[in-house]
């Protein structure tokens, strides 16, 4: 059986979902025998490759880089899993949305709540510009399945990957789709 090309992507999230992925512990050895990990924050690859079979996307779409990246990921991947609550709902990353848009968010973070040396960031092109509204991944590109959880447990990640390794579509229910 050909080895599956697996990728993981980290957008607007805390990396907790990736930490939970590492909680797969010794099963990671079994996984490594069945997949080629072609792109991930856990490895050194600069460019998202073509023809990825399965990708786990952690995090919401919060800035311009995320928006560009998710469109590349979607175009080059067969099966896209929205991985964790930030990707699925916006979650904590989207807590800023009720403030309205980018300017009030920056104002609140860098001026209103600053203890000293309040200053709005002015340097261009050092960090990507924020989007006015944080959205879940499926609000921007088509998603093939959703794995909620903050973070999803290692058992639930395994319940998604195991059928995919066989070429089957996973079905999740009960605690496997619990938010939070």
């Amino acid at each position, binding site marked *: 059986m050909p080895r599956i090309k697996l990728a993981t992507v980290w957008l607007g999230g805390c990396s907790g979902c990736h930490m939970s992925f590492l909680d797969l512990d010794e099963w990671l050895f079994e996984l490594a025998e069945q997949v080629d990990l072609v792109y991930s924050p856990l490895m050194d690859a600069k460019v998202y490759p073509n023809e990825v079979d399965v990708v786990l996307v952690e995090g919401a779409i919060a800035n311009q880089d995320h928006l560009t990246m998710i469109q590349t990921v979607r175009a080059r991947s067969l099966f896209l899993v929205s991985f964790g609550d930030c990707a699925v709902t916006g979650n904590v990353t989207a807590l800023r949305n*009720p403030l309205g848009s980018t300017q009030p968010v920056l104002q609140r973070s860098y001026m209103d709540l600053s203890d000293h040396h309040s200053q709005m960031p002015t340097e261009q092109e050092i960090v990507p510009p924020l989007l006015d509204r944080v959205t879940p991944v499926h609000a921007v590109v088509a998603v093939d399945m*959703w794995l909620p959880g903050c973070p999803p447990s290692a058992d639930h990640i395994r319940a998604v990957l195991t059928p995919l390794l066989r070429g089957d579509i996973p079905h999740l229910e*009960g605690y496997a789709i*619990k*938010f*939070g």
Partner: protein
Amino acid sequence: MAVKTLIIDDQLISALEEETLLQAAQAAGIHIPTLCYLEGISEVGACRLCLVEIAGSSKLHPACVTKVAEGMSVRTQSDRLQKYRRLIIEMLFAEGNHICAVCVANGHCELQQLAMDLGMDHVTLEYQFPNRLVDLSHDRFGMDHNRCVLCTRCIRVCDELEGAHIWDMAGRGTRSQVITDLNQPWGTSPTCTSCGKCVAACPTGAIFHQGSTVGEMVHERTRIEFIVNARQNHQWQF
């Protein structure tokens, strides 16, 4: 007391004529999802989760406020009902700001549980991200309007069991919200007895004990059940 016979999900059932479809179904061990319903206080049919199909009627009927009738044939599960129930839960999630990961009621929340039960792995509707307030003016309790689903349990439990009626509903449509007294900070309410029944009745983490952290608040319903039992069955022995 007259008895009615009816069919719920192919089961032949007898029920007292004053009983609702929900009570008759529960007595027969048939589960119908609910959210605004709380045993012991009045039913308002607000959340529409308990909608059921009745043979001969094209519309759907809320089981909590529909009385049993002779010869009625009821279906509590169907693809159509499942679709509507999931859509109702999705609308509640999209309408408020429900961030389960940082909520006091995480793991003890009826909204979160319903989402799981109905297979909601994501929300297909656009999130509204309303700008809602948090009221921490009360000494012991807090109210986070972001987490409120407008079920009105707090209003009814305060009015009917405590007899204080400090809670009520204000506004229309997306501006609807529960208020205390004359829409003033909860801590300034001269009528609140600080009994905590609203905290126990709330299905989510909207009304909570101050000082609770994420996932810590269990809804303690025994006091509500004790009062309901005392009122309905005249039993108040500990």
